[in-house]
C-alpha cells in the first residue's frame, strides 16, 4: 500500500516534469515569451478572482451559519458583556472584510490589462488618505473605549462577599481547594509537598514531619557516603568540580561528552554529596518559612479545615467566586470556555480571576437538551505530553445543593491519608541507598 502511494507520488512528479518539458518545447515552437502574459491567461485569472470571491463569500456565510453559534450562552455574568462586545466586534470586522475583499477582487477583474488603454496616473490624494486614516482611527477609538470598560469590569477587585476557591495545577491534573469554615486558606509552600500533602499546605505538624523525613534522608545519605569512603580508602577526594560552573554547563549541554576523570565511585560519591546539599537546602528553606496571621488566624493553623477536591468541583449559582490559581511545576492555563474565563497558573506567582456563575448545570442541560452536558475546566497552555487531557468538571449548583456537597468533602486535617495523589514522591533515593548497601 505504502509502496503504491510512494510510486504514485513519484509518477505524478515525473508526469508534471514531462508535461513541463512538452510545454517548453511547444512554447519555443510558438515563439512565445514567458513574461508576456497572453490575453487569454490574463482574462482567465481576472475572472477567477471574481469566481473565487463568490466561493469565498459563500463559504464564509456557510461557516457563520453553521458554526457561528459557537458556544452556548455565557454561564457567567461578565461573560454576557464579553459576548456582546464580541458580537459587535465580529459585526464590524465582517462588514469590513466583505467590503475590502469585494473591492479588491472586483478591481482585479475590472481593471485587467487592455493594450489599448493606459492606467490612470494617480499618485496620491491627501483627502482620500486622510479619510482612511480617520475612519479606522474613529472605529478603533470606539473599540478601545468599549473594550477597556469591559476589561475593567472583568478585572476589577472582587467584591467583599466573594467566596474564594483555589485551583491548583500540575502535570496533568487540577485540584480545587475551599478555605473551610474559617474562610481563610491555610498557607501553602512547595517545600512541604509530599504524598499526603499534594498542595503543600503548611501546618506545624506538617513542618515537623517533613523535617524529620529530611533528617532521616540526610542521615542515610551521609551513611552511604561514609560507607563508600571507608571501602575505597583515601583514594577518593572530594570531587573538586562538583559545583564548578563550567563543568555543570558542559555536562548540561552535552551529557557524557566530557566524562569526569577517575572511577565511577568518585562520581557516585559526588552525586551523594550533591543530594546531601540538596536536602540541606530543602531543610533551610523550610526553616525560613514564617508564620502569618490573617483575620486573627494563623495561616499555619487555618489549613486543617480546608477542603480539597479532585475530578470535579462545585460552585453555587449567583455567588461571586474569586479563583486563586497556583501551579506546582510549569505554567498551565485555567480555561473555562462556558464562563468566558481564563487565567494562566504560574509557579511562584498566584493569579486571580473572578466571576459570578448565572446558570446551574441542571438548567444548562435543560437549555441544551443534553443530559450529559457539563461545564469544563481545561488546561490551555501547553504543559507536556498529556496536556490535551488535563481537565476537571465544573458543576454549578443551587446554593442548597452546593452546601450539601461541600459538607460531604473531607477536610485536609481530617483526612491525611486521602485524597490519593499521583504525585508520588518517587525519588531515586531508595535506589541509591540500595546501591550503597550493595557497594
Amino acid at each position, binding site marked *: 500500500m505504502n509502496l503504491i502511494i510512494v510510486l504514485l507520488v513519484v509518477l505524478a512528479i515525473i508526469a508534471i516534469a514531462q508535461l513541463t518539458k512538452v510545454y517548453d518545447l511547444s512554447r519555443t515552437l510558438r515563439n512565445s515569451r514567458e513574461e508576456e502574459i497572453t490575453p487569454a491567461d490574463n482574462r482567465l485569472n481576472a475572472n477567477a478572482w471574481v469566481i473565487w470571491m463568490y466561493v469565498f463569500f459563500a463559504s464564509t456565510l456557510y461557516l457563520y451559519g453553521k458554526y457561528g453559534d459557537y458556544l452556548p450562552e455565557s454561564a457567567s455574568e461578565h461573560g454576557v458583556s464579553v459576548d456582546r462586545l464580541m458580537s459587535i466586534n465580529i459585526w464590524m470586522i465582517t462588514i469590513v472584510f466583505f467590503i475590502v475583499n469585494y473591492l479588491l477582487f472586483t478591481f482585479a477583474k475590472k481593471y485587467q490589462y487592455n493594450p489599448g*488603454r493606459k*492606467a490612470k496616473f494617480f499618485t496620491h490624494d491627501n483627502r482620500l488618505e486622510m479619510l482612511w486614516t480617520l475612519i479606522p482611527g474613529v472605529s478603533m477609538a470606539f473599540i478601545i473605549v468599549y473594550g477597556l470598560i469591559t476589561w475593567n469590569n472583568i478585572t476589577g477587585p472582587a467584591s467583599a462577599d466573594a467566596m474564594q476557591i483555589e485551583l491548583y495545577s500540575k502535570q496533568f491534573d487540577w485540584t480545587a481547594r475551599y478555605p473551610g469554615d474559617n474562610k481563610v486558606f491555610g498557607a501553602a509552600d512547595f517545600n512541604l509537598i509530599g504524598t499526603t500533602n499534594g498542595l503543600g499546605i503548611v501546618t506545624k505538624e506538617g513542618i515537623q514531619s517533613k523535617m524529620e523525613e529530611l533528617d532521616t534522608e540526610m542521615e542515610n545519605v551521609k551513611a552511604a557516603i561514609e560507607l563508600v569512603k571507608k571501602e575505597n580508602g583515601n583514594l577518593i577526594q572530594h570531587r573538586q568540580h562538583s559545583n564548578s560552573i563550567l563543568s555543570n554547563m558542559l555536562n548540561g*549541554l552535552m551529557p557524557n561528552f566530557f566524562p569526569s576523570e577517575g572511577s565511577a565511585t568518585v562520581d557516585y560519591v559526588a552525586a551523594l554529596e550533591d543530594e546531601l546539599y540538596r536536602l540541606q537546602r530543602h531543610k533551610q528553606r523550610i526553616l525560613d518559612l514564617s508564620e502569618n496571621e490573617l483575620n486573627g488566624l494563623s495561616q499555619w493553623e487555618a489549613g486543617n479545615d480546608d477542603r480539597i477536591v479532585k475530578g470535579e468541583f462545585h460552585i453555587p449559582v449567583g455567588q461571586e467566586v474569586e479563583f486563586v490559581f497556583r501551579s506546582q*511545576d510549569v505554567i498551565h492555563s485555567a480555561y473555562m470556555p462556558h464562563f468566558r474565563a481564563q487565567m494562566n497558573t504560574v509557579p511562584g506567582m498566584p493569579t486571580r480571576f473572578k466571576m459570578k456563575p448565572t446558570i446551574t448545570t441542571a438548567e444548562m442541560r435543560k437549555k441544551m437538551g443534553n443530559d450529559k452536558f457539563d461545564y469544563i475546566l481545561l488546561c490551555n497552555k501547553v504543559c507536556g505530553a498529556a496536556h490535551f487531557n488535563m481537565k476537571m468538571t465544573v458543576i454549578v449548583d443551587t446554593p442548597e445543593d452546593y452546601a450539601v456537597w461541600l459538607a460531604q468533602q473531607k477536610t485536609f486535617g481530617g483526612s491525611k491519608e486521602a485524597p490519593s495523589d499521583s504525585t508520588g514522591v518517587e525519588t531515586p533515593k531508595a535506589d541509591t541507598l540500595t546501591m550503597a548497601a550493595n557497594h
Partner: protein
Amino acid sequence: MGAHGHDHGHHEESFISKYVFSQDHKMISKQFLITAIFMGVIAVMLSIFFRLQLGWPGEKFALLNTFLGDKWAPDGILDKNAYLAMVTIHGTIMVFFVLTGGLSGTFANLLIPLQIGARDMASGFLNMLSYWFFLFSSIIMVASLFVEGGAASGGWTVYPPLSALPQAMPGSGTGMTLWLISMVLFVVSSLLGGLNYIVTIINLRTKGMKMTRMPLTMWAILVTAILGVLSFPVLVSCVVLLVMDRTMGTAFYLSDIFIQGEALDVTGGSPILFQHLFWFLGHPEVYIVLLPALGISSEVIATNSRKPIFGYKAMVGSILAIGFLSFIVWGHHMYVTGMNPFIGSVFVFTTLLIAIPSAVKAFNYITTLWKGNIKFTPAMMFSVGLVSTFVTGGLTGIILADSALDVNVHDTYFVVAHFHIVMGMSAIFGMLAGVYHWFPKMFGKMLNSKLGYAHFWLTMICGFGVFFPMHFVGIAGAPRRYYDYSEFEYLNAVLDLNPMISIFAIIGGSAQILFLINFFHSIFYGQAATQNPWNSNTLEWTTPVKHIHGNWPGALPEVHRWAYDYSNPEHEEDFVPQIVPLKAGEHSH
C-alpha cells in the same frame, strides 16, 4: 570606480569562492533562498504529519510509520511527544528560518545593492558569515528532530519552566539544548545581515537615489533590519538566561517548583519575565516577517498594475509607524498571564493603534489597482492574494488585541487562524511573489507561468481552506497544541471541520511540489530571461542578465526620478525607468 567595477566583471573565480564561500550578494541571496526552500519543505511535511493526527485522531496511517519509524509513529499513530515536537519545530522553522532568514535573507541580499545602485553589500564578508551562521543554525535545528527525547516540544515560544526543566517533558532535554544553540546562531546571522542591510542602504545609494526615491521594498527592508537589530539582542539575553537556568542552577525564570517528586532549589525567579523578554522580540518579529512581504508586494502591484503605488509617502509613513508601534505592543500576548490589568489596558491601546497604518496600507494597495491596467503575472496573483490575506487576517487581530475578548480566545484555534492568515499566508505569498518576480534576475531564466497559476490558486484556496475554518474551531473554545480533541463533548459541533482542514492542508502542501518542479526545472531549462521582463522602473533591471561581480559593467547608474513613474502621461511608454533623465520642465516625484 567604474574601472574597478569593470575589473570585477572579468575576474575568474574558483567554484568554491563562486558557489560556496561567495561574498557576492546575488549568490548569497540564492543560498538563502534555496536553504529556506529546503527548510520550508521540512516544515510543511511536519505540518502534514500532525494534521493527519488532528484530522483523524487515533487512525492508523501506515505511511506515517514508514516515514517516522516506530519511535515517533508506532502502528502509524503519531506519538504524543512527537506531535508536540512537530508542532514546535514547524512553528520555529516557519517563523525564523523560512519567513525571517529566508525572506529577508533572500530579498534583502538580492535587492538592496541592485535597487539602490551599489556594487555589493557594505561588507561582503559579514554577509557571507551571515549565511553560514544561518546554515549551521538550520542544520542544528533539523538535527534536533533526531536526538534522544526528540526536538524541543514546548511550542515555538518555548516558555519556561516547561522548556527549562528536562524532567518536565522529553523534548526539554537535548532537543531543547540544540534549539537554544540553533537560535543563538540564528540571531548572530540576523544581526550580521541586518547591520549590513542598514549600513548599505544608508551609505551606498547611487547618485540621485534619495531616500524618498527608494522603492518601497527598500523602505520595508530598512525598517525590518532596524527592528531586527533592536529586538534580536533581547532574544539573545532571553535565551542566555534560559541556558543558565538549565545548566548553571540559576533561577531567573524559576520559582517554587515541585516536579517529579522533588522540590527544586529555585526561588525568586519569574516565568513571566521570560515572556516579557521573548515577546519584546516576538512581536517586532511578526513585522520582521511581514514588512518585507508588504514591500515586495508594493513593488509587484505597482509594476503589474502599470500604475504608481498610491500614496508613496503614506506607505513609507505607515511602514515607519508599524515599525515603531511594534515595539510597544508585546504585552498583548500576555493578557492572561496575571499581568497587572492596567498594563494590559495600555497594550490594548497601543495594539489597536497598529490597525490604522495597516488600514492605510490595505486601502492604498486597493487604490493602486483602481483604474490600473493589470497584468496577472504569477507574482501579481500572489501579491493580490497577499492583500486579501493581510486584510482578512488583520481584522481578527482586532478581536485578539481586545483584552476582554482575548480572555476567551487566547491560545485557541482562533489565534492559530489569525496569525497563519495575517502572518503565515501573507508573508509566504509575499515571498513567493518575490520569487516569481525576481527569478529572472536571480537565475537569468523565466519560471513557467502556467505552473505558477496552478500553484497560486491551489495555495490560495487550500490556505484559506485550512485556516479560515479554524476561526470557528477557536471561538468554540478548542485550545491549540492539543493532541486529541475527541474527549471534549462540547467541541463535537465544530470538530467535523478537522478532517476537511487536514485534507486542504495535504492538498495545499502537495501543491508546493508544482513550485519546486517549476523552480528547479527552470533554473536549468527555463526560457532565457530578457533584461527587463516586467517592464519595471527599478534599477535592478538595468543590470546584465548574466551576473557579474559588481553588478553594473562600467559606471554605476544615476537616478533621476522615483521608482513609480508608470503610465506617466508625460511619457509615451507606460514605464519610465529611474535612470531616465527628467524631461525639460517635468515634475519629479
